[in-house]
C-alpha cells in the first residue's frame, strides 16, 4: 500500500525544531467548485442573510488573528496587512455588488460572490502600477475566506482533537497566527520561502516549520505519520519505527543542546589558546534583532537592507532608512551594527520604469554598488539614513559587490559629499563611521592587498565568492554539485584576503554561509579570520565550536591544506585531523 511507503521530501527549513506526529491536511487551496443555483424571489432575503453571516464570521476570524498577533511583539507590520484584509471584507462596493446580483439575477450567494470577485480581478488586471496590481493577492485571500465561510468549508480555525502536524498548500500570515501551539506540533506547506511572512511568524511562535515542499499536500494523506525536521528542511512520510526512534533521540539531543547552548550563548567565544573570536549575527528584518541578540550575537555583522526596497515602486525615503537603522543600532548597542548598502538590481523595485530593460545575465549585471553609483540619488538617500542613525549607537557601512579600486573611491567620494551636507545642515552623525567592503568578487579578493589600504574592514561573502570563482549558478540543478566551499581556489582567495587585510592592520570578517557551518570553523580560524557573522540558528553552535578549538594547532595544519589538489582531499584531510585532535567537533 502506498500509504505505508516511506517517503522523504526536501523543503526549505523555515523555523527550527523537530516535530513527530500525525498529519492533518488543511485545504487552503482555492475552492474551484461551488454551488451555482438559480433562486426564487421568496428566498432572496435568506441568501442575503446567509452572505451577511459569512461576512460577519470572516471578520471575526481576521479580528481574532489580529488579536493573537498583537500579543507577539515586533510583528506589527503583519497585523497591518490583516487590517487591510478586514477593510476589504467590509468593503461596501463588494457587499452591494453581491447584494444587487442576488436580487437582480436571482442567483445564490456563492455564485454572486464569484461573479463580483471576478469583476474585481478584471479591474485589477488593467492597472498599470505593478505594485498595486500585485495586491490582487490580498483580495483573493479575502475572497477565498468569504467563499469558504459561505460554503461551510471553514479553513480559518483548525479544530484538532490531538496534537498534529498541519499540512497545507499555503498558509496566509493570518492562518499561521491562528495556529494553536498546544495543538499544532509544526507545519509543512507546498509554497513559501525562508523569508516569507509566514516563516517569520512561525519563527516568532517557535513552531517547527518546513515550507516550499511543492507537493506535500499531494504526497501526504490525512493521518499519515510524519517527521518534520525544521532544522534541515526534511519531511519524512510514514517513517519506520527505528527512524521515529532516531528522531526522538535527535529531538531530545537537539532540545538539550539548544538549552545548554542558549545558556552559554551570551558568553564570549574564546579558543583553547585564549584568542577571542567575535561572533556576530546576520539580520534581514529589524523585528528579528532581539532574537538574534538572545542567541548570542556580539553585534550585527551583516544587516541586509533589501527589504526596504522590495515590493515598492519608488525607493524608500530617508526617513524609512533612518527608522529601520536607528531601531536596530539602538537595540544592538553597545555592539556594532554593520549596514550593507543596497545589494539588488533596480529591477526589484523599478518594475514600472521602462528604461530598465531585462538583463540577460542579472548576476553579472547592473546591481548592488554598480546600480548605486549610477543612481546616486537613491544611494545618497540611503547613506543619509545610515549616517543619521549612526548617531544613536555604533554603526559601520559596508559596500557590496566591489570589483575594483574605482568603485571604492567613487563610493567614498559620494559618502564624503553626504557627510558634508549633513554637517552643513547641523545634523549629528558618527564622523568616524568605519567603512568596509564585501569581498565577494574574485577580482577584489585578488587585489585585496591594494583595496585594504582604502577601507577599515573586509567582510568575505562566501556564497557569491564561490559562485563567481567557480562560475556556477547554485540554483541550477545541473551544475550545483560544483558548488564547493573547500575548493582549493576558494581557500586561496580567502587566505589571500585575510593576509592582505592583516598586513594593513584591518579586521577581516566572514558573513557568508560558510561562516555558519561548524565543519569549516577550524579552517577559518586557522586562516586567521577575526569575525564570523552567521544566521541566527548557527550562532550558539559556532560559539561553542570555537571554545573547543586551539588556533595554533589549526594554523600548523593549514599550510598542508595548500598542497592538496581537490576539495575532497581538503575535506578528508580536515576530517582526519579533527578526528585525531577534536573528535567531538565532527560528531
Amino acid at each position, binding site marked *: 500500500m502506498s500509504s505505508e511507503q516511506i517517503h522523504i521530501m526536501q523543503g526549505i527549513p523555515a523555523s527550527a525544531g523537530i516535530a513527530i506526529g500525525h498529519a492533518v491536511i488543511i485545504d487552503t487551496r482555492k475552492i474551484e467548485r461551488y454551488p451555482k443555483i438559480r433562486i426564487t424571489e421568496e428566498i432572496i432575503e435568506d441568501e442575503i442573510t446567509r452572505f451577511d453571516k459569512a461576512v460577519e464570521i470572516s471578520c471575526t476570524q481576521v479580528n481574532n488573528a489580529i488579536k493573537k498577533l498583537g500579543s507577539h511583539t515586533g510583528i506589527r507590520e503583519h497585523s*497591518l*496587512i490583516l*487590517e*487591510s484584509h478586514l*477593510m*476589504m471584507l*467590509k*468593503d*461596501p*462596493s*463588494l457587499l452591494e455588488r453581491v447584494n444587487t446580483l442576488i436580487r437582480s439575477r436571482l442567483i445564490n450567494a456563492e455564485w454572486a460572490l464569484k461573479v463580483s470577485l471576478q469583476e*474585481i480581478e478584471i*479591474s*485589477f488586471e488593467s*492597472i*498599470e*502600477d505593478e*505594485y*498595486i*496590481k500585485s*495586491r490582487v493577492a*490580498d*483580495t483573493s485571500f479575502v475572497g477565498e475566506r468569504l467563499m469558504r465561510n459561505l460554503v461551510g468549508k471553514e479553513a480559518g480555525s483548525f479544530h484538532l482533537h490531538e496534537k498534529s502536524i498541519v499540512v497545507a498548500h499555503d498558509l496566509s500570515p493570518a492562518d499561521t497566527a491562528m495556529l494553536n501551539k498546544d495543538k499544532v506540533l509544526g507545519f509543512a506547506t507546498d509554497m513559501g520561502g525562508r523569508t516569507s511572512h509566514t516563516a517569520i511568524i512561525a519563527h516568532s511562535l517557535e513552531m517547527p516549520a518546513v515550507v516550499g515542499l511543492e507537493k506535500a499536500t499531494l504526497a501526504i494523506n490525512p493521518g499519515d505519520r510524519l517527521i518534520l525536521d525544521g532544522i534541515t528542511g526534511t519531511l519524512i512520510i510514514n517513517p519506520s519505527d527505528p527512524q521515529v526512534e532516531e528522531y526522538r533521540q535527535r529531538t531530545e539531543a537537539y532540545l538539550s543542546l539548544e538549552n545548554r547552548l542558549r545558556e552559554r550563548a551570551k558568553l564570549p567565544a574564546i579558543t583553547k589558546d585564549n584568542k577571542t573570536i567575535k561572533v556576530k549575527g546576520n539580520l534581514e528584518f529589524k523585528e528579528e534583532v532581539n532574537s538574534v541578540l538572545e542567541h548570542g550575537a556580539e553585534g550585527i555583522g551583516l544587516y541586509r537592507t533589501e527589504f526596504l526596497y522590495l515590493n*515598492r*515602486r*519608488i525607493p*524608500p*525615503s530617508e*526617513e*524609512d532608512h533612518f527608522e529601520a537603522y536607528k531601531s536596530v543600532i539602538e537595540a544592538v548597542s553597545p555592539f556594532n551594527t554593520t549596514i550593507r548598502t543596497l545589494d539588488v538590481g533596480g529591477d526589484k523595485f523599478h518594475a514600472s520604469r521602462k528604461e530598465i530593460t531585462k538583463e540577460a545575465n542579472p548576476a553579472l549585471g547592473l546591481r548592488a554598488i554598480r546600480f548605486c553609483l549610477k543612481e546616486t540619488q537613491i544611494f545618497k538617500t540611503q547613506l543619509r539614513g545610515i549616517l543619521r542613525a549612526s548617531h544613536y549607537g555604533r554603526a559601520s557601512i559596508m559596500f557590496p559587490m566591489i570589483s575594483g579600486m574605482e568603485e571604492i573611491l567613487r563610493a567614498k567620494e559620494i559618502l564624503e559629499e553626504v557627510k558634508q551636507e549633513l554637517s552643513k545642515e547641523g545634523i549629528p552623525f558618527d564622523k568616524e563611521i568605519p567603512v568596509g567592503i564585501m569581498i565577494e568578487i574574485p577580482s577584489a579578493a585578488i587585489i585585496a592587498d591594494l583595496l585594504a589600504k582604502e577601507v577599515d574592514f573586509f567582510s568575505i561573502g562566501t556564497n557569491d565568492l564561490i559562485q563567481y570563482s567557480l562560475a556556477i549558478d547554485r540554483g541550477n540543478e545541473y551544475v550545483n554539485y560544483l558548488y564547493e566551499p573547500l575548493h582549493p581556489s576558494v581557500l586561496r582567495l580567502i587566505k589571500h584576503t585575510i593576509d592582505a587585510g592583516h598586513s594593513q592592520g584591518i579586521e577581516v570578517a566572514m558573513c557568508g554561509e560558510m561562516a555558519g557551518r561548524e565543519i569549516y570553523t577550524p579552517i577559518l580560524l586557522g586562516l586567521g579570520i577575526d569575525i564570523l557573522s552567521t544566521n541566527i540558528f548557527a550562532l550558539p553552535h559556532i560559539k561553542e565550536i570555537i571554545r573547543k578549538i586551539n588556533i595554533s594547532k589549526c594554523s600548523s595544519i593549514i599550510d598542508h591544506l595548500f598542497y592538496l589538489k581537490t576539495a575532497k582531499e581538503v575535506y578528508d584531510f580536515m576530517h582526519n585531523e579533527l578526528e585525531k585532535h577534536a573528535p567531538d567537533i565532527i560528531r
Partner: protein
Amino acid sequence: MIKNELGLHARAAAMFAKKASGFSSNIRVTKDHTPVDAKSIMELLTIAAARGSKITISANGMDEKEAIRSLVSLVNNGFGEDK
C-alpha cells in the same frame, strides 16, 4: 496630491476607506475622470493613485465639510508615513 512614497497602496487605501466610512456622507474620489466610492478599499485600489498623482475628493451629505477636511488632511500628511 498624493504625497506618501507608495501612493494610495493597500495600507493607505485601508486608512482612507476606514476614515471615510466614519462619515455618513456619500464620498467620492476622482482620478482621471473616474469616480470611485471613498469607502471602498477595493475601488480605491483600482484607481491606482501613485505618488504625485492628483485626486479630487467630493462629498455630499450631513457631515460633508468635516469629511472632506479630515480626508484631505490624511492625504496631505502622507498617511502618517513621512514625519
